[in-house]
């Protein structure tokens, strides 16, 4: 393990990881859909001090009673590796794939964005929504709810655009991801 610029440590446990490169990885986790499985995964992240950016989960195979979780985790490469191994240790976890590591994958997030306003701003909001291929799923005289899907970056960009145009609320799903190509995983 490389530790950069280590000084005499104050703590008897030495310094933390310091300024090593932080990466962002998308993990796809196949789990038994049983009570407590989400708590096990969340508990693992909080208990071991790992950072999670987003987590989504839903049942994906009724017959096998399995769910797929998509977890965006951030950390040094060594920490990301640990996260994968620690997840694999959990008994109801069948498989963990690091999509970022394994190659091309598609990542999508959905957001519902509520914008309130009239006149110019309202028209501008609708025009921008068009550019982002956001759909209007609710509208009143003075408000819209847009549904936008795309990468987290695209959703972020859309939200940034909507803030000055009267955005009052947003609800995001977090990313779902899958590998490209014919591979099963």
């Amino acid at each position, binding site marked *: *393990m490389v*530790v950069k610029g*280590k000084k005499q*440590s*104050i*703590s*008897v*446990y*030495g310094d933390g990881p310091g300024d090593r490169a932080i990466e962002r990885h998308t993990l796809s986790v196949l789990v*038994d*859909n*049983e*009570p*407590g499985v989400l*708590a*096990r995964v969340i*508990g693992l992240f909080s*208990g071991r001090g790992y950072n999670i950016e987003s987590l989504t989960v839903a049942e994906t195979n*009724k*017959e*096998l*009673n*399995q769910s797929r979780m998509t977890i965006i985790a951030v950390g040094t490469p*060594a920490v990301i*590796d*640990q996260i994968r*191994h*620690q997840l*694999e*240790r*959990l*008994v109801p976890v069948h498989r963990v794939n690091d999509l970022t590591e394994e190659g091309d994958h598609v990542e999508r997030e959905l957001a519902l964005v509520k914008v309130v306003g009239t006149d110019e701003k309202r028209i501008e909001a609708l025009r921008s929504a068009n550019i982002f291929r956001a759909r209007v799923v609710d509208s009143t005289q003075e408000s819209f709810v847009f549904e936008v899907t795309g990468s987290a970056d695209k959703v972020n960009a859309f939200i940034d655009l909507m803030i000055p145009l009267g955005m009052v609320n947003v609800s995001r799903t977090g990313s779902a991801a899958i590998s490209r190509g014919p591979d099963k995983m």
Partner: protein
Amino acid sequence: MISAVKEKALAAKTSKTKKMSGAEMVIEALVEQGIDTIFGYPGGAVLPIYDALFQQNKVKHILCRHEQGAAHAAEGYARSTGKTGVVLVTSGPGATNAVTGLTDALLDSIPLVCITGQVPTFLIGNDAFQEADTTGITRPCTKHNYLVKDVNDLSNILHEAFHISGSGRPGPVVIDLPKDVQFAEGNYINKANAITHMYQPQTEPDMMAIEEAVRLIANAKKPIFYTGGGVINAGPKASKDLTEFVKKTGHPITSTLMGLGAFPAHEEQWLGMLGMHGTYEANWAMHDCDVMVCIGARFDDRITGDIAKFSPKSKKIHIDIDPSSINKIVSVDLPIVADAGSAITAMLKIWKDKKYKVNQDALNRWWSKIDEWRSVNCLSYKNSDTIIKPQFALERLRHHLSKQKKDVFITTEVGQHQMWAAQFLPFDKPNHWMTSGGLGTMGYGLPAAIGTQLGNPDGLVIDVAGEASILMNIQEMSTAVQYNLPVKIFILNNQWMGMVRQWQELLHGERYSQSYTESLPDFVKLAEAYGGVGLRADTPDELDGVIEQMLKTDKVTIVDVRTCQSENCFPMIPSGKAHNEMILAADADKFDKKLV
């Protein structure tokens, strides 16, 4: 809840099943799993199981005096017999009291199955009397846990729990069992028909990697074997093969606290324990080696010291059954995921088949370097005619034990005495040394000794204790008396929480905050009050007589050995320092005490 597929498979088998109550299923499954001894404490939420226990005689229940004691006793039993330890406790306080034992078993990879009572399913979540969220509380301190809501799931869960607890990297599994499920009738699926294959850890090594490892070992100029508790967990054959393999190579070997006994300590190649209080030669050899063969150990911070300066020049081979242990702390050159036993056996076979030879010249040079380190005589201490030095007490104990015909088992509490026991007592066999390594739990030793004695009725079981630690589970004296367990408690009584005092002396400017153990009981009278035997040694010349007496008693015996109060445990690698920055008894005075 179980998957639809599993449910279907199980349904197909129900035609062959017996009907019985949940409580009866617990007993039935224990018997099928080969369990004849369990440790526990009754209470409202487990009464149906206690009722079922009462009506049979295949499973013996050992009533401990505290649920923590029951859990540690089960650990001692498990570690000394290689079987799974079983604990039975009630809901709420029964379960929370067991948590320390569960955590201890998780950190030291001890197979335990702990059945906790729970309030009836329809009361869960209502803050019912003695309700605790046991699965929530124990999730991070178990390998796996279950809350059983349907009696028809119970038998499969019981069998799966034993499978999970004992396979792969062993650990504790909790089954939380609501009272109504214990009463309910359901189908019992026997062990043969149970579906447990969902959990299948990898145990067989990648043979290419094993070949590469053997090649590295053969070509090494400054090799060292660094082994841990994983070798013990892999069963006696792993230790036997390890011994043969290491002898064939002629390489030096050291081990962690948990791994003591896997390689016989009387052999020339044995360097003693490594780590914070390890020997000078072991730590220097780790620091200077060119090939490190780590088997079933996990680079704990008590082993490595300063990670940045840890064994900087070596190629590292790491064999571990738990992939998450590999590259967690130290990045290694050759990772091998496997059961320690399978990997060692495979390496030994290749070594023999391919008639490998070591680089003898280089090895000789390495050994003469090691002999230089050995000549430092790092465990030497200044003896006294008037005051009992703790090291001297252990040397006398070792002397008397060497004449014992009985199989000797040592357990310990936590503190200086634990480190001295590891340094001064000889460990020649696996499964004969029970200590709390990962968690460092004071109060572990006495209950663990009780479990060990139960699993080895003809053995001689000694708990090397500190006066502070022993008070943490002293109530288990009663258990030892009730079941006629003649365990010996050898207290190195320095009247201080010695290890805390040592850190305060060396690292906190000699400010001895709360580490003096005031108002100690009279341990001789205490032993007698429980119905055991109490002995005391005040001066060095009394030691031999007292030890001889202790070895003759057929009852639980406390020996209060009044030792030097200010003795420190050396060598010591202060936390965060490197292996080659170890301090020895001789230069302790030069140690910079202002360092914090």
